């Protein structure tokens, strides 16, 4: 399956620069998610791949073919729009058959192809209904069916779950993953919701507010090894601690406000660092252990005071104020295998984590 390569894409509206020299490789035959906050330019990228918008400069490749100047109706790329954009004057059958009718295929062939897709998306009872009579979820299935019937090389999804209610979303996500497995088509999925992206993606890219791509990788790489403060903050919850780097016996430490000293592990591919550099450390709340007892075997241990406890069902969230005033978020699984210490407000506690689980981040 064909992948997409974006090379030096630049786009501005008037004096607003949306994208500036953006490069991105979207692997073929994979489920690729593009994650970013609203207004970061991710929809512009999608519209450029679809051909609905032209870049000011730069090129777009589909496989080895330069499609930058191929018009929208000649690209083997189909889009599932956020609002679905179903034609209200046509019924479900005609909506799905829209692209086939344009090619003037025989009536039999059209019926045959539509029937196949209809069965695939379980739309049998709805075939002759008007699209305005359908629920949001049904409309979405019609929109996807309409897009896949042409067997495009790339399928684009523009925040497809935005209009669905919360309970339904998880189910649709799993269906999309299944569909991608089944078709093997390159899927590009645009979203601002990190859980959606983490769920569906084989590969994902994170865009920051300024239209730059901060990191590309598998969901696990992105979550476990974010490379910037923005990525760490945007994907999941993270404690970001700022401080200055110091070194002692070949071990790097982060000196925070001259009060706390944290042992850190510097990743091999990290930029060269020097003593005295300002740095950020990201620690996922679930990687921290909280206890009233002194525990052995952790590379870091700090003390703090419990400021807030929020019971969240499967986990409990503690806010713990450290000596320097920083409030650390800690998630503790409510697995209840063994009896635990009862931790209460204003208790003095220890927090522990392994240095391998904390991430040194670029600012």
């Amino acid at each position, binding site marked *: 399956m064909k992948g997409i390569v974006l090379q030096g894409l630049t786009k501005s509206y008037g004096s607003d620069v949306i994208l500036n020299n953006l490069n991105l490789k979207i692997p073929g035959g994979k489920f690729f998610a593009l994650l970013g906050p609203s207004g970061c330019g991710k929809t512009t990228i999608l519209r450029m791949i679809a051909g609905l918008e032209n870049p000011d400069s730069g090129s777009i490749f589909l496989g080895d073919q330069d499609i930058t100047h191929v018009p*929208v109706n000649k690209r083997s790329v189909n889009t599932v*729009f956020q*609002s679905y*954009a179903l034609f209200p004057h046509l019924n479900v059958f005609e909506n799905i058959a*829209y692209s086939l*009718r*344009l090619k003037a295929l025989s009536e039999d062939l059209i019926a045959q192809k539509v029937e196949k897709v209809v069965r695939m998306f379980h739309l049998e009872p709805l075939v002759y209904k008007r699209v305005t009579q359908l629920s949001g979820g049904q409309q979405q299935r019609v929109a996807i069916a*309409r897009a896949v019937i*042409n067997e495009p090389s790339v399928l684009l999804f523009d925040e497809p779950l935005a209009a669905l209610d919360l309970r339904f979303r998880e189910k649709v996500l799993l269906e999309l993953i299944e569909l991608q497995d089944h078709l093997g088509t390159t899927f590009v999925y645009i979203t601002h919701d990190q859980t959606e992206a983490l769920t569906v993606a084989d590969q994902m890219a994170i865009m920051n507010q300024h239209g730059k791509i901060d990191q590309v990788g598998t969901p696990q790489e992105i979550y476990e090894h974010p490379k910037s403060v923005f990525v760490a903050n945007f994907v999941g919850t993270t404690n970001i601690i700022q401080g200055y780097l110091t070194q002692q016996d070949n071990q790097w430490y982060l000196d925070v406000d001259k009060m706390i000293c944290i042992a850190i592990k510097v990743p091999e591919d990290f930029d060269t660092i020097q003593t005295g550099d300002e740095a950020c450390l990201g620690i996922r709340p679930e990687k921290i252990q909280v206890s009233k007892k002194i525990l052995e075997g952790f590379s870091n241990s700090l003390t703090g005071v419990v400021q807030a406890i929020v019971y969240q069902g499967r986990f409990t969230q503690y806010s713990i104020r450290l000596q320097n005033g920083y409030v650390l978020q800690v998630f503790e699984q409510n697995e209840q295998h063994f009896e635990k210490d009862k931790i209460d407000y204003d208790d003095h506690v220890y927090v522990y984590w392994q240095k391998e689980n904390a991430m040194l981040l670029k600012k």
Partner: protein
Amino acid sequence: MKSLFKKEKNFFFMIPALVWQVLFFILPLIFVFQLAFFTKLFQNFTWDYIQQVCHFSHFIVIFRSLKLASVTAVLCLLIGYPIAYFLALCTDQRYKSLLLFLITLPFLTNILVQIYAWYFILEKKGVLNKFLSLFLSDTGNWLNTSFAMYLVMFHIYLPFMIMPLYTILEKMNVRLIEASLDLGASYLQTFFRAVLPLSLQGIKTGFFLVYVTTFGEYVVPSLLGGQKHFFVGTLISEYFFIGRDWHVGAAFTCLSIAVFVVSIMCYSEILQRLVYRLQRI
């Protein structure tokens, strides 16, 4: 009915419109029917008056008016649609209100003033002939021709066509046009398969707005089309004000209304079928 008047409040707000409709539409209409079918006030029912007007010469007048209305409505549709499309979908938001204002400008001018303005353009030594004499040695006479009549009718009634079309095209979801292109349709296919059927309601509204108002029109034809022919409007005013034969006049009015209503139903069907047929392009 129950759902229509679900809230008494709603009904309350409808009263002025209802009163207006009853006083100036329903009652006069009943009065006209009464005149056409009764010799005295709702007494002595008779077909006599209707029989008197069911004459070839009267049908000719009705069909002349139907032709005038049809030609004007079709002209307005063919030329008004591209203008409305351009205004709604291809114009920068900043200029829209200005252009719309320019289109509605003729509304602010009295119809007679507009017609006399056209006199200056179309008369023998008018602007049009002066312009044409630059290229041609022999220039024609434009006044009192059907060309002048249709031209001015078209000009006066064009805004009635553009307004409803503009409203519906302006509201059109641009994503639908993008979806059509995305699915592989050319711009022409997108127009005939998505834009045109989606604006069918606007086409119908605009078409009938022009068609209905021009059917009764007689000022323009009598001033610019020459006095040679009667139109429905002229004939009715002739019966009521000159002939003073209100019964026959009312009968003729009823007859023309009947023919007219049938023609409207035909056009509605034709427009619908035409738009659906064009989807196959």
